[in-house]
């Protein structure tokens, strides 16, 4: 029983990370039909700069961590918005080229960060409480899982409030459904493209800082490895669906944890098989639009 609970909560924690990456990917794809390979770069740069600032001000304390998260959010948002504004926008409506540019940016970005921070992981310090465990129904659960879950829930709530409660949110929701009709109502939908990139980048940057808490290190490849799973999550959840991304994040991460523990470390394979199965049974994903 205690093992099941540990696996569940750890899965939720990992799912929280996936969600922070997948939410932006899904919104960006839903609105702009761009599969953003550069999303991992937003995460990694957020993690590195967050760590650099946090450790200088107050290493291994709550204050330092909060500052890191703030920096991660801001850096992720800025880098993402610049990416949209300087690169993606110029290739308006040319989706293949847009994807190719994000691929190039991913390659160049990771290489640049390797050049700056080296290829080896850099171990990070965190507040003492996060290194301890809490016992729930006999399971000793690392406390950082709670932090991840809590923040992912807050981010989910924040994005939902934004989408439901503001005019830009309304435009984005409508645009995900039918972008052309939004322009035909006299709305410059491109402005919301930058915004969606910024939101996705902010979530990814925050995810980067949290990933460094979860794994205990920062590295130039932090983003790339999470990105593949985030892609899978996005597709399983249904491209463009925030709720789908949230549900699929949890499903994928929990499945991964259980398969790793009970089926001899086959978590990654189980996820891949789940993706193939979902796509073949329901090509639009769990909560995707019917049309491709």
């Amino acid at each position, binding site marked *: 029983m205690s093992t099941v609970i540990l696996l569940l909560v750890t899965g939720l924690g990992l799912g929280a990370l996936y969600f922070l990456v997948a939410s932006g990917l899904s919104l960006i794809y839903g609105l702009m039909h761009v599969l953003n390979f550069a999303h991992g770069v937003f995460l990694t740069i957020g993690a590195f700069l967050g760590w650099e600032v946090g450790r200088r001000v107050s290493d291994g304390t709550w204050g330092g961590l909060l500052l890191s998260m703030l920096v991660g959010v801001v850096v992720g948002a800025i880098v993402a918005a610049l990416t949209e504004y300087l690169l993606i926008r110029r290739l308006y409506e040319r989706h293949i080229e847009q994807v190719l540019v994000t691929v190039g940016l991913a390659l160049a970005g990771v290489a640049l960060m390797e050049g700056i921070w080296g290829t080896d992981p850099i171990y990070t310090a965190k507040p003492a409480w996060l290194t301890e465990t809490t016992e729930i129904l006999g399971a000793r659960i690392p406390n950082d899982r709670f932090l991840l879950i809590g923040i992912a829930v807050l981010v989910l709530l924040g994005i939902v409030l934004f989408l439901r409660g503001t005019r830009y949110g*309304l435009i984005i929701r409508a645009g995900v*459904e039918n972008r*052309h*009709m939004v*322009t035909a109502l006299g709305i410059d939908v491109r402005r919301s493209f930058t915004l969606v990139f910024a939101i996705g980048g902010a979530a990814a940057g925050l995810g980067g800082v949290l990933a460094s808490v979860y794994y205990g290190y920062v590295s130039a490849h932090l983003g790339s490895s999470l990105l593949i799973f985030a892609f899978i999550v996005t597709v399983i959840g249904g491209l463009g669906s925030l709720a789908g991304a949230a549900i699929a994040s949890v499903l994928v991460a929990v499945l991964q944890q259980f398969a790793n523990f009970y089926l001899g470390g086959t978590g990654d394979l189980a996820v891949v098989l789940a993706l193939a199965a979902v796509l073949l049974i329901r090509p639009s994903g769990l909560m995707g639009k019917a049309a491709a």
Partner: protein
Amino acid sequence: MSEPILAVSGLHARIAGQQVVEDVSFTVPSSGVTALLGRNGVGKTSTIKAVLGLIDRTGDVRLAGDRVDRLPTHRIVQRGVGYVPEDREVFAGLTVAENLRLAERDAEPRRELVERLFPDLVQRKAQRAGTLSGGQQQMVSLARALLNDNRVLLVDEPTKGLAPKIVGEVAEALEAVADTVPILLVEQNLHVVRQLATDVVVLSGGRVVHTGGAAEFLDDDDLVHRLLGVHGDHAESDASEGAPAPEASATTDTTTEEGRA
């Protein structure tokens, strides 16, 4: 008559590499309803989309004398063009109220007008547009265009697939607003055309093959039959319901028209 509100000349457009609008020229007068007619697939919808810049196009399009063919869609619309697309295109996941709120461009949108014309929608404000009936969705779509003070409306088959009673309601609503704003109307139902239209523009194979007054056109049974493949509205009452012309005859028709041109 004064300057036309919309003047299109030499308009060309392609979809997926295929020429769907070829050298189309026509004008929409500054008052009344101009009906854009033609058989299925002749390019009526494409013409409207090309005017709005929703598909790639070349040519000269003027709104009240100003060229708009280089502008992106949202700028054209902001200059006072209301668009009611074919198949309504409401945002299915958004509520009725959200659909309408999204469409509001003016500082003082005309909510009372819309509520008076479509009282049904008032009660359904919180309902998701996707769960509405076809007629109600059409009302949302019309309401989105009527909320703003437009200089011209482009309305694409507003009665398509609707029950006869609803067709009447939609036509009445359009008749009511036609007094205040000129309309370019694509419509297969010739009763509705007769009720509303002052002028007609007829397309075939992506080209204009006839322009003129609505009444004279509709009274010329032979011409109507030849260009639209149906008999005039007084001859056959429901010829326009759903499936107008057999596809096969459309090509022969095009060639005769081209021979004439």
